[in-house]
């Protein structure tokens, strides 16, 4: 199976990917990483020697200066061998360093980027807190000005790379800073900073080789030069950083899914039942075809997302890609395990590990349900006033009709019924995936790709049709849960 976006890549990137493949095949033992909950230092240093920690960092500071799309290709390859490794590198290239690269000062670049590009320093990123997940406005970790310093107090949770990072980009509440009374800002934190400590490693379901810790700030004093970007504008910067993070995470989902499909194809072609290979049974054939189509669509959406140059467009695409790819990776890993029968339940097969590894992708970097609600909001704002007649594609027109109907029926009240926004977001991400898949199939011209695009378009139509059946009526849910119903929506 070809690598993500390999139609076509540059020679430099293709060579890097081939080197990475060879290194991973030789040095990475996913089962051992899972069993010991640790990536061997030799693997991390080998990846650093390949230059993977500097892929997207500026050349002037020792990086390769490659694009988000190229970084996605790297993460995809890594995830085919081990998701813990992919997450560690992907986090460094996206959430960990993107803020510094995009919003940092020349002095900040000179201080940190060379060691980040070489892999001598690994980057981490943190917004989540014990009481604040997807809702950034609920951040309690706070930084207050004190002369030329910030004094930071509070806790952070679930910080990937936390155990070995040399630099943390941390989102904190900064009331009043930069004129924003409830604004957030980003701070650059080093593990040796006084008053700052990294907490114990979490014991996780999957991705056991990756480091996940908490952070504790006990009146940590940070010099003013640690402020990243504009004071009080953390939310706006986070949108860009999270867009990169979600896109790279989606690429990792593609890699994990590719591994699972390859295993399923190999097993079903070798395993004989009822006198025929499993793959010759029509039920299995359909299942394999749908899995391959889903994976093709995941890759198409990731590459379309990574190609976005406008921040707003990247933000919306990355929402769709993150949900589509994390749900797809979960589905593909589960189905591949099922196609192995009892063997799939045995750890040695490697599929149980993929199932455990990819589960969290539906949760971190924004829980999928929250992201779908945001995607529905974005779609409603974009299409509410757009005449359906201006949309030429039939599927897009169906989505535009649905959006207009929701707006006409509910007007602003729809924002008090997130289930409707969620349903619209779900339909929207399928339509975006279908559009990207069709574009990719047209670009390759291969009959199998056109067939995959047809399957995805059918699923997208179903998603739009299902969304049209969702109503604001929630009486039955209240009855099931035995809850009293306060207020009523139409």
């Amino acid at each position: 199976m070809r690598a993500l976006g390999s139609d076509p890549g540059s020679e430099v990137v293709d060579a890097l990917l081939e080197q990475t493949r060879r290194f991973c095949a030789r040095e990475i033992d996913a089962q051992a990483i899972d069993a010991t909950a640790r990536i061997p230092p030799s693997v991390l240093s080998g990846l650093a020697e390949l230059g993977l920690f500097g892929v997207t960092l500026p050349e002037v500071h020792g990086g390769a200066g490659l694009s988000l799309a190229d970084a996605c290709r790297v993460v995809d390859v890594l995830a085919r061998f081990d998701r813990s490794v992919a997450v560690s590198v992907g986090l460094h290239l996206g959430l960990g360093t993107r803020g510094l690269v995009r919003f940092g000062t020349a002095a900040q670049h000179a201080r940190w980027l060379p060691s980040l590009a070489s892999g001598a320093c690994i980057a981490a990123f943190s917004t989540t807190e014990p009481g604040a997940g997807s809702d950034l406005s609920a951040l309690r970790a706070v930084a207050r000005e004190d002369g030329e310093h910030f004094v930071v107090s509070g806790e952070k949770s679930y910080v990937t790379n936390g155990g070995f990072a040399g630099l943390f980009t941390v989102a904190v509440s900064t009331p009043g800073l930069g004129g924003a009374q409830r604004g957030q800002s980003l701070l650059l934190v080093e593990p040796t900073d006084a008053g700052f400590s990294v907490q114990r490693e979490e014991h996780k379901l999957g991705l056991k080789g990756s480091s996940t810790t908490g952070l504790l700030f006990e009146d940590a004093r940070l010099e003013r030069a640690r402020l990243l970007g504009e004071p009080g504008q953390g939310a706006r910067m986070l949108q860009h950083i999270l867009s990169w993070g979600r896109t790279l995470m989606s690429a990792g989902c593609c890699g994990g899914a590719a591994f699972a499909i390859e295993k399923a194809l190999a097993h079903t072609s070798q395993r004989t039942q009822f006198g025929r290979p499993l793959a010759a049974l029509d039920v299995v054939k359909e299942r394999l075809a749908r899995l391959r189509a889903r994976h093709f669509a995941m890759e198409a959406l990731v590459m379309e997302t990574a190609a976005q140059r406008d921040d707003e467009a990247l933000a919306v695409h990355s929402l769709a890609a993150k949900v589509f790819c994390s749900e797809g990776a979960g589905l593909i890993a589960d189905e591949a395990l099922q196609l192995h029968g009892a063997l799939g339940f045995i750890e040695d097969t490697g599929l149980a590990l993929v199932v455990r590894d990819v589960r969290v992708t539906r949760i971190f970097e924004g829980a999928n349900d929250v992201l779908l609600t945001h995607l529905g909001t974005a779609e409603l704002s974009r299409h509410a006033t757009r005449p359906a007649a201006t949309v030429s594609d039939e599927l897009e027109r169906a989505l535009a009709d649905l959006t207009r109907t929701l707006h006409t029926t509910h007007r602003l009240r729809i924002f008090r019924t997130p289930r409707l926004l969620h349903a619209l977001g779900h339909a929207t991400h399928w339509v975006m995936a279908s559009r990207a898949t069709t574009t990719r199939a047209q670009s390759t011209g291969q009959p199998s790709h056109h067939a995959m695009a047809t399957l995805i378009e059918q699923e997208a139509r179903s998603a739009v049709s299902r969304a049209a059946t969702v109503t604001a009526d929630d009486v039955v849910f209240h009855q099931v849960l035995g809850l009293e119903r306060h207020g009523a929506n139409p």
Partner: protein
Amino acid sequence: MTDIDTRVIHLIAQLVPVKEHDIKPAQRLRDDLGMDSVSSMELLSMLAEDFELDVGIEDVADVHTVAATIELVKVFLAKKAA
């Protein structure tokens, strides 16, 4: 401050962790009151319902402050009365 101003601010206070008497017209819904794209739309939805106004999404694209929110309500109340 008019009755409308007070009613709007009272409704805003139900959605943000800021005391009613600390909410001022010049404040921005996102930077100063901590709202995001969904919660700010939810606020406008509450206002439309409370004041019984027929406000569409296209009408609220430029509403980013408390003052703009109050003005939106006044404009639509005037339209309703006309």
